């Protein structure tokens, strides 16, 4: 994977209320996404580009079980999050919604605006200067879920195949 991804940096303990603010939860996901991270990076939602990556501190996505906190990043085109640790429910929700989470203890070494590539064959983040940061391997079935765009499209495909056979 030689695609390059621009890095947006955020700090530690980014909770689900920062990703999907409670005040907008009655709205649809595209409207919630417009307010994603507005408390910490007000310029983020309007300027993030498809394929960009979030580099965060520990405990990314702690808080509620609302899956909109993962879906908002997907709808904004975020390719992946790179962080040392995640809220447990968020980790599950992210893959179910098709968002790749890389667990990388050195995530905070990444710099704002830097262009990185993700090498999923060796589970490394490759920095602009060539430095490689190791990530925890992700089981194949979760990678497949992300590649399918999440659990819903994956189930749809599986059911279609079952019906066809």
């Amino acid at each position, binding site marked *: 994977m030689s695609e390059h991804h621009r890095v947006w940096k955020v700090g530690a*303990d980014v909770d689900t*209320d920062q990703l999907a603010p*409670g005040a907008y939860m*009655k709205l649809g996901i595209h409207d919630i996404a417009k307010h994603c991270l507005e408390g910490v990076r007000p310029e983020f939602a309007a300027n993030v580009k498809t394929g960009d990556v979030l580099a965060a501190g520990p*405990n990314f996505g*702690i*808080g*509620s*079980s*609302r*899956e909109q906190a993962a879906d908002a990043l997907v709808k904004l085109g975020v390719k992946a999050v790179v962080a040392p*640790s995640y*809220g*447990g*429910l968020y*980790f*599950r*929700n992210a893959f*179910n*919604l098709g968002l790749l989470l890389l667990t990388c203890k050195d995530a905070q070494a990444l710099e704002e605006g830097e262009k990185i590539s993700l090498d999923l064959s060796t589970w490394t983040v490759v920095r602009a200067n060539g430095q490689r940061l190791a990530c925890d391997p992700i*089981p194949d*079935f979760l990678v497949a879920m992300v590649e399918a765009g*999440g*659990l*819903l499209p994956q*189930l*749809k495909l599986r*059911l279609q195949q079952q019906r066809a056979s």
Partner: protein
Amino acid sequence: MSKPTNTPQTLAQKLIAKAAGRSNVAVGEIVNCQVDLAMFHDSSGPRRLKPMLEELGAEIWDKSRVVLVMDHYVPERDDDSRRIVRIAREWALEQKLPHVYDSLGICHVVLPQKGHLKPGMFCVGGDSHSPTGGALGTYMFGVGSTEMLGVVVTGQLWVRVPQTFLMRWNNRLQPGVTAKDMMLHMIGRFGMNGGEYQAIEFCGDAVKALSMQERMTMSNMSAEMGSQVGLIEPDQVTRDWLATTGAKDVLIEGWHTDQGAEAVTHEFDAATLVPQVAAPHSPANTKSVDEFKNTPIQVAYIGACTGAKLEDLRAAAQVLRGQQLPAGVRLMVAPASLQDQAQAESEGVMQTLRLSGAEVLPTSCGACSGYGGSIPDGANVIATTARNFKGRMGSATAQVYLASPYTVAASALRGSISDPREVLA
């Protein structure tokens, strides 16, 4: 990869292994589990699952293993609530769901009271307080709506075998100190993500001495520690309580953590624990009750799955018996289930609460999640609920303190945060 069968296992490992059809599992391993039961409510369930199921053209894998509880938007207060509850009721009829509990109480209390949970089961709930089931030796946790869709279609779910934290509470609690105080203390010590999605197991003499409802209060709030589940080894208390629910074929043998199993142990002394209070706006903001002495209170709320079960109502009545609430203090009581309310009524507990000046609200999630009741702006509130995040109870300017039913009742009675042991003495 697989270890010899005599490897000591924690209770969490044993429960996962059973659901995965394995003799044992290793911490960190990812396994696929068969789900014994899926529970969801009017807010997390039909309104989200129905359109996704229709998009897939799929059916529920096993309707006998699905439980729907209407508790969040009942009683319906506005058009949005009416629409959401109507979707749930119509879908329940259309699907001919066999287990639907409409306006009978809060899902985490109704589910075990109706005999759906037993030791050894592997269950999911569409709500973050689903770990309540751990009090019965059930591996139960909350999932998001898309993940619930996967369960409802396939009957399966993956899980990464978590590390176990053993929270050992030695000795016995003093009168007027409760499971809620134990939980607030632990959340204060370990923080909101302190569990790192581990399995927590509560053990020790003080836990063994707790009634089933008190155990549920502990397991419920393990969600506030960032853990996946909050388990308690089933014993005679479990067996006796389950006998009252009509649950059949209850087996408790073997559902315990083996000697030498891989776990991190933390020790606590129940005998020296004093009533705890969590200050705004986090359950982790916990200190001893005397640190908040003289903080004035305008609203007190005894409600929620974690704070208005029969024993919580009894505790409040014990404080308020023969007493009158002062002018300027509003005490609201929303029993956690109709069954608990009826029993409290027959024991005179509800009458005691009413005579003291408390208002009794309908049994539902109500004010805990900002769906009902009225919390005035700027008020100091003390509540038996699980979370005091800013704005959660409906007003962003309300200051919400969390405490046990004893402490909430005593604080209402005195008009300021008070140690219930002074009132009970």
